[in-house]
């Protein structure tokens, strides 16, 4: 096996030093009833690189890659152009094959980019402090709700109907263990009255902007309403590029921001791995989940970075930790950091403006298709249209024509009959004019 350096002679010599007759002797603590021969595993034997490549490439060819067709899917995962330098750099051995930076003297590379990442996230969200990332946007949102429950010592979390349904379900899974989750009704293209739902038991209001239908929300008044009653405001963002154009939640009074960072530096990857951005106020640092990197000096007085405030974490605090999270999303957070460094202020602004312009252009084109209504009056790079028939069937018909037209709202909200005809459409800088034309043309064919 090409990955195993030991030869049969090596193994014999090693056994001899150990004083064991065979490898089996090393497994002597395994109860006899649990000892099985290799044939007990109904699985194939070893394969060369060429064979594996061939097998897996064949499998990969059975899916329609987003880049091979006009593509308009979003709803929490966005296809952007990632500069070639990003993938090259994250594949450097020193980043790819290192562990968590527990030995800071020989892990300054990882620690420094974590510090840069934390700064970028704080700047982008307009918050004071950010951690070194969580698994993804949905789990970051769940952690934010748990944190709000800890900070306020109140049980109830109120979720806007515009929060991505997968995120809401993820929150329910954990936050119901420690309190209760209330989901406001779904109102595509409009805002609901969340302020009126806040009471003395409310730990937090969770609101997403742009919401799952693409609607840009004004979260400032909600933050004020939450604060007036002693609750926190959690802002959720699923499209990080939007922060290049829109007012950041931190400037609108958000106490915690949970954001999916996939769209900067990371591919679609069929849903994972992604990178959860988590930012908050300085006063809540000790209630934060996840890894934190901090600046310090070494014994020679040189600036350096270390993991810090670890007493919040599971390896020290055990059952009293703020979260059970152990890893962060290391390499994905590196990809985010490099891509954002490449973009810089200028690049990010241009990218965000280009995204909005593409989406606005597509919305105008689709609005001219008979029977189509654009539901979202304001949006970033994603909007929702109402079709004259169920959106899932239309999406399937368009897929037949080689167009991936977006995400039917019914995929996310299968029991909400009110959204059956709604299609969530995203257009990023990767959508060419001819893709948009093809979409509009094919849609009018399918609807006629």
């Amino acid at each position, binding site marked *: *096996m090409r990955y*195993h350096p030991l030869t049969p002679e090596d*193994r014999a010599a*090693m056994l001899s030093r*150990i004083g064991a007759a065979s490898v089996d*002797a*090393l*497994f002597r603590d*395994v109860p006899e009833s649990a000892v099985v021969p*290799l044939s007990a595993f109904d*699985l*194939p034997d*070893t394969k060369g690189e060429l064979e594996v490549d061939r097998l*897996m490439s064949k499998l990969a060819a059975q899916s329609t890659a*987003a880049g091979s067709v006009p593509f308009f899917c979003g709803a929490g995962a966005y296809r952007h152009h990632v500069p070639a*330098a990003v993938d090259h750099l994250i594949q450097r*051995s*020193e980043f790819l*094959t290192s562990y968590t*930076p527990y*030995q*800071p*003297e*020989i*892990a300054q*590379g*990882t620690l420094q980019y974590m*510090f840069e990442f*934390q700064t970028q996230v704080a700047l982008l969200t307009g918050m004071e402090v*950010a951690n070194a990332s969580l*698994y993804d946007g949905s789990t970051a949102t769940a952690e934010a709700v748990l944190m709000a429950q800890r900070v306020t010592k109140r049980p109830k979390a109120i979720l806007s109907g515009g929060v991505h349904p*997968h995120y809401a379900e*993820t929150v329910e*899974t954990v936050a119901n*263990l420690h309190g209760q989750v209330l989901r406001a009704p779904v109102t595509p293209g409009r805002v609901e009255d969340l302020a009126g739902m806040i009471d003395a038991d409310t730990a937090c209001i969770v609101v997403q902007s742009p919401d799952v239908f693409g609607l*840009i929300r004004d979260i400032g008044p909600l933050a004020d309403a939450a604060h007036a009653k002693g609750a926190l405001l959690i802002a959720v963002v699923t499209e990080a590029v939007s922060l290049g154009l*829109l007012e950041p939640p931190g400037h609108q009074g958000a106490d915690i921001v949970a954001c999916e960072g996939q769209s900067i530096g990371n591919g*679609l*990857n069929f*849903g*994972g791995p992604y990178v959860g951005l988590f930012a908050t106020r*300085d006063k809540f640092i000790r209630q934060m989940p996840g890894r934190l990197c901090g600046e310090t000096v*070494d*014994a*020679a007085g040189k600036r350096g970075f270390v993991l*810090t405030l670890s007493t919040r974490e*599971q390896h020290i605090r*055990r059952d*009293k*930790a703020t979260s059970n*999270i152990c*890893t*962060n*999303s290391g*390499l*994905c957070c590196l990809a985010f950091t490099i891509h954002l*460094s*490449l973009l810089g202020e200028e690049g990010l602004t*241009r990218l965000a403006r280009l995204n909005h312009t593409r989406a606005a252009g597509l919305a105008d084109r689709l609005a001219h298709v008979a029977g189509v209504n654009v539901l979202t009056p304001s949006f970033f790079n994603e909007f929702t249209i109402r079709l004259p028939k169920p959106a899932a069937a239309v999406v399937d018909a368009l897929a037949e024509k080689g167009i991936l037209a977006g995400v039917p709202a019914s*995929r996310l909200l299968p029991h909400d009959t009110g959204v059956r005809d709604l299609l969530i459409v995203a257009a990023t800088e990767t959508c060419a004019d001819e893709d948009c034309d093809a979409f509009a043309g094919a849609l009018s064919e399918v609807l006629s």
Partner: protein
Amino acid sequence: MTMSSQGRPTAPGTIEANELPTISGDRGLDHEEALIFELGRRGMTGVDIPEVQMSETRLGGQRRKGPVGLPGLSEPEVIRHYVRLSRMNYAIDSGLYPLGSCTMKHNPRLNEKMARLPGFGDIHPLQPQETVQGALELIAELMKWLTRLTGMPAVAMSPKAGAHGELCGLLAIRAAIEARGENRRRILVPESAHGTNPATAAFAGFVVDEVPATQGGHVDADALEAKLGPDVCAIMLTNPNTCGLFEPRIIEMANAVHKAGAYFYCDGANFNAIAGRVRPGDLGIDAMHINLHKTFSTPHGGGGPGAGPVVLSERLAPFAPLPLLVHDAQGFRLIEDRAAVPEGAKPFGRMCAFHGQMGMFTRALAYMLSHGRDGVRQASEDAVLSANYILASLKDVMSAPFGEGPCMHEALFDDSFLEGTGVTTLDFAKAMIDEGYHPMTMYFPLVVHGAMLIEPTESESKESLDRFIHVMRTMALEAKAGKRTRFEGAPRLAPRRRLDETAAARKPVLRWKPKELPQAAE
């Protein structure tokens, strides 16, 4: 107060700068590198994106009022910056990385190539399912490997890391207990457990009750049995355990747990010692997460991303979270809706958005297909053989609390061989850095004083192991002979000397701030 023996110097003091100072501050191949925010200039960018005329009428009045504050750099500057940073990192590709319980094995590059195939890497999680059949088949294939290697009937794929998998397993157990109309809340966790175990149990709303270890480093099965009762929901046990030992009474413990109406959660962090030789299903385990980034070699990436699928017994399988993957006449299908699940399924909820860590699934499957069942078994055997070789080669000069052996995939030492030398576990570990090695895991597991946990993995040649053994022996002998220079203030040859963790924690500086703003986080 609760006492801790983990306290150790975290403020290194100061030392004299050594050697000839250079004009640039760089030293040969070792470059100092500023923060990205201290580089660059206004208006520069490393990505060419057209400037467009944009109408603001559809931004809901929410347009950003000020700049983000990002620096501008060209592509060559950004590449140089991150290449220089990378050179300050130790990595498996550059040397032996004996970090116990972390499993730093070789990361084959084929796996990276496979994960980047557009049919896996460039597909959207919510594309019509007919257009992602290849990806779904890949997940199904990986599920087959995981269930067959573990001898378990089902597997939940969505957990994003080991700790997330633990949570998934415990929530399945909680749902199963509730479905029985019971309200059990106590979870038994050995004191040697990894910190995530008690943290996860508390996170999932359970009360943690610790089980002591025996003198031999195993879980005290009698103490465990004595603690079982009608309020015990589950035990959470690592096997092989965190001392690197297989639990010989594991089946007995499983039977006792089941008899008491509880479930057996196994932390699969150390599955890499037994994969291809022992099936957890044969040991009476009800749920076990598998760290794909350990056993199946998806790269650690400086701390993630990981993946933690959870295999489940017949009794827990119905409670697996959404989405479920099924195969029927129409092909492969993800069931994302609670109302559409097959008969008998009662999913407890959803762990995260979408369907799990596809990028890790691809890499893990490439690893499995390359190894085959025989290669997986060989990997476990070589890992165990190498750890025992190290144990046998070092135990006369270092001190191995459970040294009568054999161990599994990692060899555990304590600091009693350093007693009276003035050298601590920390000093010893830091001196390894100067020798070109990444230190072993230290001060874990907590049940051993000054623990040093060495996991060589199957990826090292005998020559590499022999060289490591030679260095370790020499260091141990020097320490015992009172030669302390090598250890005091080590490392001396790394990009940084010991860092002041105390200062970092007392006045946290967690981000860069422009000069005009106050530096300290208040």
